């Protein structure tokens, strides 16, 4: 029952932590009639309190480090971070920049992350990442 509910209904809060807007546009593309993620019960919400998944785009800049941490802490458990794009994995094209607080696993070391590589990843890949994210939610929700 627990796993089934997450499988059928997953609410996503989108955080842009210094992305070039490429991944954000791909996330929007996943909402359009062509890919229509709402048919899987996936919905973008306006507040981290409502969210199960934080979709994080971009390398985390030093300005955004604190905000990303706070948004992550504001989300109710169980929760998962969906890292969209290569930037969140390694820094991507920005990897040597002076203003990076580092990739996601450095800023949020305790978070369960699902990585979707690509620059930018295709909407299919993002949907696939969400599918993997709800498996983590299953284990997180079932464990408690």
């Amino acid at each position, binding site marked *: 029952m627990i796993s089934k509910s*997450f499988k059928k209904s997953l609410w996503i809060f989108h955080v842009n932590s210094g992305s070039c807007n490429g991944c954000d546009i791909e996330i929007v593309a996943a909402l359009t009639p062509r890919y229509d993620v709402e048919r899987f019960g996936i919905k973008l919400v306006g507040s981290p309190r*409502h969210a199960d998944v934080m979709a994080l785009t971009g390398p985390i800049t030093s300005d955004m480090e604190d905000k990303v941490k706070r948004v992550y802490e504001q989300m*109710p458990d*169980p929760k998962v971070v969906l890292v969209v794009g290569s930037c969140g994995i390694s820094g991507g094209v920005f990897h040597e920049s002076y203003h990076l607080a580092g990739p996601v696993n450095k800023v949020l070391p305790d978070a369960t992350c699902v990585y979707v590589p690509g620059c930018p990843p295709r909407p299919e890949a993002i949907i696939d990442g969400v599918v993997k994210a709800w498996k983590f939610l299953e284990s997180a929700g079932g464990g408690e």
Partner: protein
Amino acid sequence: MTGELFFKVVMGTIGMAIFAILLGLSFKGIDRKIAAHMQSRVGPPLRQPFWDVGKLLIKDSVVPKNAVSWLFNFAPVICLASSITLLLYIPIAGYGPLLQGHGDLILILYLLTIPALSMVAGGFASGSPYATVGAQREMVTMMSYEFPLAVAAISIAWKMSDAFKGDVFTLSFISSHPIWNNVGLLGIIGLLFLLLAVVIILPAELSKIPFDVAEAETEIAGGLLVEYSGRNLALFYLADGVKTFALSSLVVAIFFPYNISQFFALGSIPAFIIDFLFFLLKVSLVMLFAVTLVRVGVARLRITQVVSTYWIAVTLMALLGLVLLMWDSQILTIRWW
């Protein structure tokens, strides 16, 4: 007698709560499916709202540190409870309401404000600036639509009192004497204006686009609901579904109280089933025209535009309906010869 009434009310309320929640969520599913099809999407399955509620119930329910926690937790319960209470006074499928003889149209006008007021209380108790802005916007919206709504309700009750003797203010009386049958041409035009005014008020009562300034996700991050999560958010979600169903059935009870079972020679149980299905059809049509089509078709208004829409356009429409209904009675009673 009081023991029996008590038993009836308690059991009826529990039954009505289950019935209302199931129907409210189903209507929410239909609404989302139709909205998706209008945007040429496949859309979520009809059971989607049930999955959403199930998921919200197993999520953590966070109470922010600077929130007034008792009010923060109390507001969603009151919102759902008052939405269900509303249904106890509304006739369903041509049958009298559960609390028949205990309240009338005026009571319903007051009950309608309680879900919105509890959301306002919850918003102020959240301790978030977004929720405070949302709560203020919700109050402003309430102040702007209450007057035209009251005008519409009073005109209909006045017209009924003009035509009949009896408990003209009770909804069971209004729904058993369809108002369209008792007016002339001017009255029908007036009633159409009133119906239009009420249909424009519905999205604001339900916080739906274009009047969802209080919950505007893209501007104030969910407004009133911004700090709510888990169980409390699920209660608001349920209350939204129940409120949609209750308000649509209120419009049906006032404006479209017709049944179709008398056209078939049927026993009492098949007649009830047919009337009930026809009632659900009427409610979903009201919801389709008042909520779904509107929310897909137009964009969100600004709060100032909401106020001017209701205070100028909709109020004028309702007053015009009132005047036409009044002329209707007087022109019929004037001796022209």
